[in-house]
């Protein structure tokens, strides 16, 4: 892919699409719902009835279809572009998994169907729990959490209940390395715990000496991302686990990066007490432009009683719901069994790959990351010559001299026809660019990306203004984020729908 150096491109950018309300035509009709006969006298007093119709757009079916189809063209997905977003594992989402989730029998199943009417779903979810238990090396699994962060909150609440049950209520401190994702500390405070940050060594690894100093009988849990957000496997992980367990605290694994371990390493074997994974990363369920996700949590046997409800259990007559009233459980963390439409896709993926395919995921994810890291060696400084795991982090710091930042490189990559890497994260690397190619990209794609990336970095020093003006080939140039936040416009006011009587 080449950067077209054509300044006319910009003026050729069409105006943005009108909104649904801007194309709405009073009286236009789209799809008709089923016709139901009968009297419209519903016996509801006027005071509780809506006075004015909600401000919804009025369109023909074709107008609506065109609107959304044309808007879709202004976005990039794995289906259309290479998305090297570090820590997001943007791998291919198999179409067959989508098909499975949409099968009649699953897609039209009411979540409150009597258990004898949902045997198939219980078997699917039970099977997935078993498979995850094995892949994670844990003793119990909940499929309830709706995303990674939701899994973290679940883990925090489990730890809390566990210590309450042991009478150790003064354990309120959650230790989080400074390289951790923001959801880790946020989940800990949401669960009512006190967060302390632990500084990493310059190498990015956990400083065990510093860790030992802060561990105490007030420590509830240490949250460790493995491999870390720098794409590194903690060199002293077993020592970290030993120290934490020695003071009676738990070790949590943020498994957002589980793609690096899939089938080749089990978190349970490493000594973790709790782990969450993101099915929308490791198990190839589509991220939908921001969600849905799903964040199953695995725990060791001492924590199994605290898992959220509902719990699926295996009996000699198949899978069923366990007694929902175990007082030790943290209770439900969301409605119903879980995001089953997502989990069916995760199950499909694990079944397709099987024991032969799953380890290849990790091996090739490591291959692609290490290959790309090598190809970019010397282009920008990174963590050094050693092997990385599934991702690696570069620093755009040297380009600051030319007034160019990580974000500007990202914009250059958009022009070159890619999505951008994760930028400014982890926070401990200045001007960070975090790159995760996943196992699904081909060598030729990686070569092309490496060439384009190198050239963009080169031009950052030779023609910095060009990069500062990028992107030039996208539907819009850089939006004014300061303006957006100053006096936020959070809805279209073309048609007002918010005018009602006030009581």
């Amino acid at each position, binding site marked *: 892919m080449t950067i077209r150096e054509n300044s006319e491109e910009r003026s050729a950018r069409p105006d943005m699409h009108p909104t649904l309300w801007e194309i709405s035509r009073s009286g236009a009709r789209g799809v008709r719902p089923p016709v139901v006969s009968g009297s419209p006298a519903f016996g509801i007093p006027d005071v509780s009835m809506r006075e004015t119709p909600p401000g919804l757009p009025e369109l023909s079916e074709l107008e609506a279809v065109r609107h959304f189809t044309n808007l879709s063209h202004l*976005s990039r997905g794995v289906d259309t572009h290479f998305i090297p977003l570090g820590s997001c594992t943007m791998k291919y989402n198999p179409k067959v998994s989508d098909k499975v989730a949409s099968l009649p029998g699953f897609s039209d199943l009411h979540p409150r169907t009597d258990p004898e009417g*949902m045997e198939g779903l219980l078997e699917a979810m039970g099977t997935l729990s078993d498979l995850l238990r094995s892949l994670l090396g844990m003793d119990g699994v909940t499929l309830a959490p709706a995303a990674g962060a939701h899994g973290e909150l679940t883990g925090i609440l489990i730890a809390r209940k566990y210590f309450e049950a042991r009478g150790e209520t003064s354990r309120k401190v959650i230790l989080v390395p400074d390289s951790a994702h923001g959801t880790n500390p946020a989940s800990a405070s949401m669960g009512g715990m006190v967060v302390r940050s632990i500084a990493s060594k310059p190498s990015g690894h956990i400083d065990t000496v510093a860790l030992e100093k802060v561990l105490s009988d007030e420590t509830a849990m240490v949250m460790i991302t493995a491999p870390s957000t720098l794409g590194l496997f903690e060199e002293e992980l077993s020592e970290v686990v030993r120290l934490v367990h020695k003071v009676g605290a738990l070790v949590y694994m943020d498994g957002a990066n589980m793609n690096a371990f899939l089938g*080749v390493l089990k978190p349970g074997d490493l000594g973790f007490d709790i782990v969450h994974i993101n099915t929308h990363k490791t198990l190839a369920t589509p991220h939908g432009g921001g969600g849905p996700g799903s964040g199953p949590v695995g725990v060791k046997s001492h924590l199994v009683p605290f898992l959220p409800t509902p719990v699926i259990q295996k009996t000699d007559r198949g899978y069923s719901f366990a007694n929902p009233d175990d007082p030790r459980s943290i209770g439900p963390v969301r409605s119903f*069994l879980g995001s089953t439409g997502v989990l069916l896709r995760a199950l499909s993926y694990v079944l397709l790959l099987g024991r032969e395919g799953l380890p290849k995921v990790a091996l090739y994810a490591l291959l692609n990351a290490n290959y790309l890291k090598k190809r970019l060696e010397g282009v920008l400084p990174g963590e050094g010559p050693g*092997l990385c795991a599934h991702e690696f982090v570069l620093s755009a710091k040297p380009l600051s001299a030319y007034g160019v930042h990580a974000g500007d490189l990202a914009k250059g990559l958009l022009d070159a026809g890619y999505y951008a890497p994760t930028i400014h994260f982890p926070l401990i690397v200045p001007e960070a660019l975090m790159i995760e190619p996943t196992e699904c990209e081909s060598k030729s794609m990686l070569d092309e990306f490496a060439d384009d990336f190198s050239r963009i970095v080169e031009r950052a020093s030779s023609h910095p203004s060009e990069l500062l003006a990028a992107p030039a080939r996208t539907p819009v140039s850089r939006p004014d984020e300061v303006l957006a936040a100053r006096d936020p416009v959070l809805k279209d006011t073309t048609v007002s729908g918010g005018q009602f009587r006030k009581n």
Partner: protein
Amino acid sequence: MADFIPHTPLETKEMLETIGVSSLEDLLAPYPKEHVLPDLSDIPSGLTESSLMRLMKSMAARNRAGGSVPIFRGAGAYDHFIPEAVSPLVTRGEFLTAYTPYQPEVSQGLLQVIFEYQTAMANLFGMDISNASVYDGATALAEACLVAHRQEGRTAILISEGVDPDIARVVKTYVEGVGCTLKLIPLVSGKTRIEDVMSQMDAQTACFVGAIPTFWGTVEDFSGFADALHQNGSLLILHANPHSLAVLRPPGSWGADLATGEGQPLGIPLSGGGPYLGILTAARAFMRKIPGRLVGKTVDREGRAAYVLTLQAREQHIRREKANSNICSNETLLSIQALVTLSLLGPAGFREAAEGSMKNARKLRARLLSVPGVSPVWEDTPFFHEFVLEMPMESKKLSRLILSEGFLSGLPLSGYSSPGGENRMLWCATEMRTEEEIENLGRALEKVLVRHGGNKS
């Protein structure tokens, strides 16, 4: 059998050479040797696409789902009409396989659609603003209660018994961690009485939560609630079924500060429980206090309209432990699904669907009440499209018997406290039910009761 790995053996070899290792396994060097490449013998061998489909179809066939059994159950998840155009649009790869729109220049489509979703929800709920979604209705309500708690650190959450008891349990899970407690306000004849709210209110009251309609189907009059709560420095939170808001008075009009809902009825398949859509809307005063992504409209460098994620200083990636919430991934694709559905139906179709639900629910109620032994729990309490009836048999047993006749009955309410009860069921009919299905259900119920002798009344 599949692995979605594109490498040819030659490419793999070249790549290993470039890295300077001799085998793929060498890449595992940083991992502890004693644990790498564990035994996977309890994981089955990989399947081909066709054998996977065969297996999953056989599992799907063991569910009694909407395609084979007419659904007369709601209780938080509803069988509504979903236009055929919805699925092809939301499964377009540019939406389905995108990540969160961190890079706005190549995410304008996604961002505009979220902005339009925020507009539709604000309009539907009669509120100033909506966020881009949270996980589901229950977590939306829990997050709203946490916003109320953070206002001044008040710890009491008054919650009407009209709120789905299962949702209230999720709220409890969420708020207990930060030291809040739930106090239930009873329902009297299907209604929350303002005097009961006021008598429970004190200096620790963060908010009161009511439901539109209630879990039990009834429609309340919240006149005066907002004023009473505001005088006490407490917030009014209303949890609404968005389908009902086509016809019922929306939260904003009752003076709600925050309003939440489960978006599943807006074109999202039942899917056995998820993924669903947490709707979270608010008065503008709470713009910087609510959790979750927000998309705002701005201009690009040439003054062209453009959309971006905004007010991010509320969020975990900036504020970490001080963030408004831990939420990162939300339910964007489902929010698109809701927006596409509403756009295809338009205000007229949306209203017709809601009225269709109400008409069918009334027909269903009349038919069930014609069955000997079935009696109403409330006579004149207004309802939307669900209602509680006293059945002449233990409700879980009755539900199983009706299921074996090929219908998903009302929700058995044994195990639920009043207005639930041993023999009670919460029935629902949406616009999807036909007169024939209602009549056939009535006959099936009669048959079951005759054969299994319900306790006569």
